[in-house]
């Protein structure tokens, strides 16, 4: 990455931004009984008094540009329905699309090769519990924020496990510029151009790439740190 000063939160807004991420963690812990499973600290820096040193340690290493892993294995398939727009309904046709989603092995901790994968749920059956539609977790890719769209799309296309008409994996639509980083794309909810149509064997979100986030890793204040995080009245 670039020098740490460039990446430090802006002085005037530091407190607010730190709070935002911190708030996410707290919310998760208070509102979800299994929050411990949903939040996992991937790695911790050594304790330093200088916060910028913490951040430097967090972002060094692989320069933040690699695609960490693809959590997908086509082991099982299921079908579910998706709400369609009114245009289809007016045609008198069914407003349903069949979709295929895949169970995922390594993502749930069964596979020891995914040591750094977030443990949102234990056991592959958790997506099916109390779910009459039998929704299975989709394939997903964990990508660092510095990787470009070009790099990600090349990586996805090179995967051998996809079952589509083209090799690997993709998205329903992406921005036209491939030199954007994932961090930048998610910051401004970039998108391409596509809406679902009948007869297409793709059933997923047609919103922005921000709506495809299933989890992310962010730098937040240490809840066990010596200095308490800022408090926000709102």
């Amino acid at each position, binding site marked *: 990455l670039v020098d740490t000063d460039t990446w430090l939160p802006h002085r005037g807004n530091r407190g607010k931004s730190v709070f935002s991420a911190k708030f996410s963690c707290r919310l998760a812990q208070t509102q979800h009984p299994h929050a411990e499973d949903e939040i996992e600290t991937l790695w911790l820096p050594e304790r330093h008094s200088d916060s910028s040193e913490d951040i430097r340690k967090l972002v060094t290493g692989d320069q933040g540009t690699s695609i960490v892993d693809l959590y997908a294995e086509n082991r099982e398939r299921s079908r579910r329905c998706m709400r369609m727009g009114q245009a289809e309904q007016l045609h008198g046709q069914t407003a349903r699309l069949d979709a295929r989603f895949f169970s995922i092995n390594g993502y749930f901790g069964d596979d020891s090769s995914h040591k750094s994968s977030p443990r949102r749920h234990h056991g592959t059956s958790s997506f099916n519990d109390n779910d009459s539609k039998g929704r299975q977790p989709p394939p997903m890719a964990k990508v660092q924020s510095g990787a470009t769209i070009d790099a990600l799309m090349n990586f996805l296309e090179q995967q051998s496990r996809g079952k589509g008409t083209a090799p690997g994996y993709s998205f329903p639509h992406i921005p036209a510029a491939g030199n954007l980083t994932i961090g930048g794309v998610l910051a401004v909810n970039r998108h391409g151009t596509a*809406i679902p149509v009948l007869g297409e064997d793709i059933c997923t979100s047609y*919103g922005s790439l921000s*709506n*495809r986030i299933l989890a992310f890793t962010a730098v937040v204040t240490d809840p066990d740190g010596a200095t308490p995080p800022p408090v926000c009245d709102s």
Partner: protein
Amino acid sequence: MRFVSSTVAKVTIEHSLAHLGRAFLLDATLEVIDNYNMRCQSFVDISPNVLFQAPTPESSNGHESLMTFLQTTGRAEVLWYPLSDKAWLKVWTVTKSKPHTSTAVKLPYNYPFSHNMSKFQGLFLKTVIQLWPSLTPRFSRMCTDVIAANLLRSASDLSGPSKNSFLYARETTTRLTMSGHAVHIRRLDIQAAVHDFTVKISALLKAYANNSRWPINGPVEIRVTGLDDPSTVVVGSGMAAQSPTASSLVFDNLCTKHGWDVAVWFNVLTFPGTKASNEFYTELESCLQERFSGDRGRPLCRNGRKGGVIRNQRGRGRTRSLWRPSGKPLRLHTRQVIGTSTYGQCQSTTDMTSLPIPF
């Protein structure tokens, strides 16, 4: 204060999914789908009057209206120089195999004419058009003619894995200033929205031209996407996904109430610093807010500083103001390197303009 990294599930972070503020995003886990082959056809022989025609009763709907293409393939993009008589319509179709007439492409970026212009050439064109703005109509026609000629030569019908036609803009593509809005509407109303918008912008430009002012010398870009509907996101049992709060495509109670399920993106581009462009953008935004109010739609501002572009031609970040739908300016700061979220939370978004000046 000490910092650590934490992984957070989507269900609890809706306010952070777009515009993460100034926090550091290290990585994100994104849902992907099976890859697919796509055919990308380009049309330049459909008159904008036909493409943007007013919606008619379904039985007699024109075969070449934008909505017709969208209903068939779901994927279409229009690039239209408002002062010219042609539009570049790209239509993507998901196909199982390559059609016979289609050219197979193994790599992306298959419109080299749109990004082969050097910085000097871009600066030259900008200087000329801003020194002699009355050349704008001729410039617009020239651009569409060059696009048409190049497309016919090699790239009017491409086929290959999805990314090869998705990606077509490079960093060398000429940078233009853009004002963009995502208009949330019902899918049924797409053609009407496009028709009204194109009629309005044409009328506005004509009024400006009558006063010898030419604020827009780039194209208008029209795209259509779904909204950030959380029900389409697969999460674990007992959890419910949330729509990204600050997204231009946020799916909230208003969307449910009025049945809005798509967003039409209207992007209007011009060279940075073109005279009267800010005034024009302001006027256009007012028109959008007037046309799409109440249950008729909702335009969310995407970009629009006073000349609002995420980066100028040299790619350097700078402070600017973004305008929210309320009209209240919001000071933000952009950075040269887009590697993490750097924006405050607001309903406006920005976009790097990457735009085909076809040389």
